[in-house]
């Protein structure tokens, strides 16, 4: 089992705040890894660095043998042009490119396309994989019709896979929260990922929905897709994860199997806080 994703000494600073402080971990092919930590520990920030949205201050992220964080020549740093160059797409890998390489993600606060129907949300995610030219679209060539039909079929396959049973023509805002979460996962899967990053997928779900989510995540792993999830629900994490990485104040405080992490004194302290009356 080789490492699919390798994160080494990742650091991310926002002005004075160090959101991620020397994070290192790796994800092997087809495993379920959980990233946990108290609120504000830097979990989402780490995800954003890994998927190319934020540019880390230091460190390396290698996905499937390709570097996501690019080195910037010292000259540009000295001239203070780094931000400008990177906003023009130089010396960085755009998130869309990372997605094409096979890393998909969901967002902590649902970010579905609100003005598209459920089906269109999923077909939109097939953008990079679809052979559909400009002129073919304008002329409605047979190739275009075939591509469109295949795309819709594939999208419906994903909607069925995640157990979405509502009307696919509805706008996402018409759906209950739990269904929206499902659509977001279907949308991420439609990009054909090797690695799926889920940012608090169980937030706001009821007990039944959480159970269904656990089954779904196992099913996704069954397809050979590695899953990294951020989660606050310990029950779900302990049940699901094969390995757990614990963050606190941007630092990694534990990495290991659930049974080991669960007993780690540093982890218990991070979650429960040090009992002040005992200290005094």
């Amino acid at each position, binding site marked *: 089992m080789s490492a699919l994703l390798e994160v080494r000494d990742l650091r991310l600073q926002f002005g004075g705040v160090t959101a991620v402080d020397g994070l290192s971990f790796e994800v092997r092919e087809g495993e379920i890894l959980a990233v946990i930590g108290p609120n504000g520990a830097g979990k989402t920030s780490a995800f954003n660095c890994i998927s190319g949205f934020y540019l880390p201050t230091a460190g390396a992220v290698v996905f499937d043998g390709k570097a996501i964080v690019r080195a910037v020549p010292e000259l540009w740093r000295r001239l203070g042009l780094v931000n400008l160059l990177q906003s023009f797409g130089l010396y960085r890998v755009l998130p869309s490119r990372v997605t094409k390489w096979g890393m998909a993600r969901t*967002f902590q606060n649902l970010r579905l396309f609100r003005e598209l129907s459920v089906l269109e949300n999923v077909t939109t995610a097939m953008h990079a994989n679809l052979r559909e030219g400009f002129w073919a679209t304008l002329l409605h060539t047979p190739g275009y019709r*075939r591509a469109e039909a*295949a795309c819709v079929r594939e999208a419906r396959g994903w909607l069925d896979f995640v157990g979405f049973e509502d009307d696919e023509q509805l706008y996402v805002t018409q759906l*209950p929260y739990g269904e929206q979460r499902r659509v977001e996962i279907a949308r991420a899967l439609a*990009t054909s990922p090797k690695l799926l990053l889920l940012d608090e997928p169980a937030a706001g779900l009821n007990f*039944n929905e959480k159970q269904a989510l656990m089954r779904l995540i196992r099913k996704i792993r069954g397809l050979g897709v590695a899953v990294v999830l951020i989660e606050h629900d*310990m029950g779900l994490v302990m049940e699901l994860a094969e390995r757990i990485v614990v963050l606190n104040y941007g630092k990694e405080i534990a990495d290991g199997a659930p049974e080991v992490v669960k007993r780690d004194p540093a982890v218990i302290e991070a979650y429960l806080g040090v009992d002040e009356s005992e200290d005094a």
Partner: protein
Amino acid sequence: MRDLDLALKHVPLRAPAPLFERPQPPKGVFTSQRGFMRALGLLAVLLVAVLPFMDASRYTMSIATSALIYVMLCMGLNVVVGYAGLLDLGYIAFFAVGAYVSGIFTTVLGWPMWAALIATIIACITAGIIIGAPTLRLRSDYLAIVTLGFGEIIRITANNLKITGGPSGIHGIPSWSFGPWSFDDGFSLLGIDFPERVVFYYFVALVVIVVGVIGAGRLAKGRLGRAWKAVRDDEDAAEAMGINTYIAKISAYIIGAVWAGMAGQLMATHLSAISPNSFQFLYSALILMAVVLGGMGSTPGVIIGALFVSLAPELLRDFAEWRYLIFGVLLVVVMLFRPSGLWPATAVLPWLRRSRPTPPAFTEATAVPASIMESVDGTPTTDAHEGDRA
């Protein structure tokens, strides 16, 4: 499966087959939105095509042709603002580029009209890239400012250069000609004379709009259109879905630019004279208003908006100096009562509206036995110990 291989690039992960076949959507005129919109479109085209047979006076025809050119412009802006969500405050600049390029190439250089059309398209693509390439990398506020400046720069340049005729503009732009016959010659059909070139431009504009409506509709439904709408809705999420948002934005911008340039050429040849006054910021604002008023991203809405904005001042002509005031009040009233436009893009015909099926009620049968959760007792959880922290 072979179809899928042809349609999709090599991807490591394929969706499992759908669990059930979806029913074919209905196709009838009254049973589907698409069928109804097509019928409505056909009816509208017929009505517009019949107008010259009713009243072919010079005044009516020239106002109707201007209205159609407005419709064309608004449809182009709709791709930029409505589909891709890029706020363009200087759209008229591309219209001006089209008008001036075709004017200069045909009068000063004496090129034939079709060659001038090609030059127009190339000029608009170039202008689109020059303005769009640096600004579209940034968030859309910058684009609004840059396009606002661009619109004024084009107008002021046209006002001051010699080749553009300065403030008086360019005169004597020739008509389209096909061999020995040109639009100026006219002909008679079914006993009715069509002596006026404006009538021809009316029909040309109509045909171009029909082609544009069909083309825009097809683009909007395809891969590129979905990418545009995704970028408009949520740029970060679109990036996360593998859409290069920069390419999506710049393609919308250039398509809009080319379309406006073609409208500009149509106007230049239709009026045979152009001057910088026709390209003021006011017109950029009016077109944008038409798009917002009609409903961003909605073709029927935008057509209604364009007709309203171009025809209302004419229809209110009796009120003389009051007309722009009445026009303004009307606009405010419309926006108050229909904030997402007269015909919003997400509008569904009232008799086709779906209601969300109610989710199944929670029952004991669907519940998972609690024993699954028992195995994780004793682990530190955030919720359970929240109170202990203090």
